[in-house]
């Protein structure tokens, strides 16, 4: 800023002693604004219960996931020989029963949606710029949809006689 030469005579004694300050009363430095401030132009309330549904889903799916995941870990890693028993035959045997198919499908969907919603709130909390939010969420939703579809496809079309 070279324009403050004109006002040096009128500026008060606030400035620094050595060297000329870039800023004075007529040319204050920009203040550091807090991210995404609320103004009277902030979008007004929109009808819809999505945020409430998402919040409730986190609590309920969390409770169900505790049972599903701990059961899954016990069966896969601890009980009856532990991790050494797992192989193609073990998985094929389990998925022959609709009960384990539903169990795994439920676990896949709940865990993916629970995790995706958690990451969505983290992105909302931490990404300050609208563009960053857009891209991160786009990436998140793409990855979520891809994983859920691929997992569901495998569970439904699993062929134990594959060679």
């Amino acid at each position, binding site marked *: 800023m070279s324009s403050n030469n004109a006002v040096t005579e009128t500026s008060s004694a*606030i*400035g*620094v002693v050595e060297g000329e*300050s*870039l*800023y*004075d*009363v007529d040319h*204050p*430095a*920009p*203040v*550091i*604004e*807090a*991210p*995404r*401030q*609320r*103004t*009277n132009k*902030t979008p007004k*309330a*929109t*009808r819809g*219960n*999505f*945020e*409430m549904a*998402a*919040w*409730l889903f986190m609590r309920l799916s969390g409770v169900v996931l505790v049972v599903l995941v701990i059961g899954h870990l016990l069966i896969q890693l601890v009980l009856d020989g532990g991790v050494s028993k797992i192989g193609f035959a073990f998985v094929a045997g389990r998925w022959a029963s609709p009960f384990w198919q539903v169990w795994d499908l439920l676990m896949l969907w709940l865990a993916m949606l629970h995790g995706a919603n958690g990451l969505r*709130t983290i992105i*909302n*909390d*931490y990404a*300050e710029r609208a563009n960053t939010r857009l891209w991160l969420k786009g990436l998140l939703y793409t990855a979520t949809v891809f994983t859920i579809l691929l997992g569901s496809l495998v569970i439904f079309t699993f062929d134990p006689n594959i060679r």
Partner: protein
Amino acid sequence: MATPTMDKLEALEADSASSHLIAVTFRIRRFNPEVSADASWEDFRIDIDPKERVLDALHKIKWDVDGTLTFRRSCAHGICGSDAMRINGRNRLACKTLIKDIVSFDKSGAVSKPVTIEAIKGLTVLKDLIVDMDPFFQAYRDVMPFLVTTGNEPTRERLQSAEDRERFDDTTKCILCAACTSSCPVFWNDGQYFGPAAIVNAHRFIFDSRDEAGEQRLEILNDKDGVWRCRTTFNCTDACPRGIEVTKAIQEVKRALITRRF
């Protein structure tokens, strides 16, 4: 005959007058956009009575040491809510915080650490400890913090039972100092969030049996920047100088939204 006694007394008085003072360093976050674009810490070492408050120390600095120190205060008795600041990393009212409660002493009895004072976080700093409160009050206005009724005005008071009054008693204590909202990590990163103070003041009317716009306020707080952004970190409850159970009030609004009962 009396003179020696008087001397003794005077000496005793003079002694006690200075001995109860302790030397405390106040490390204050200074910012003056008319001088520099950067904020910086500045130390002030003053002798002060440990029974005095941080606000007294700030007065002492402003009046006797450096007149350019800028901060807000009005009533100085914890009612107006204008001197919320971050003292030793915690949001408090400078007029309700005693020096003796925040300084720590080393083995020799001297004060071991400086007391840090900075502006509350999440709002734009305008100068030294003064922040722009407009976004904070905008959120407050957006929850309609006033009694809404329909029908003819009654000819006498709007009566309320003691139990109905008790329902929202805690949230009537709010003095709008912004200590809670500016201690909220969600608010630090996203000022669009209503913040604890606005929700507390919505709670005060939502659970008021005389008010008829509870449904409307719940709808406002049901939005994406409303109560569902609360992460239950309890920073607001810890920060509140009035002892309001802020997080509990937010949870009650959440429950009212789910059950539609309030």
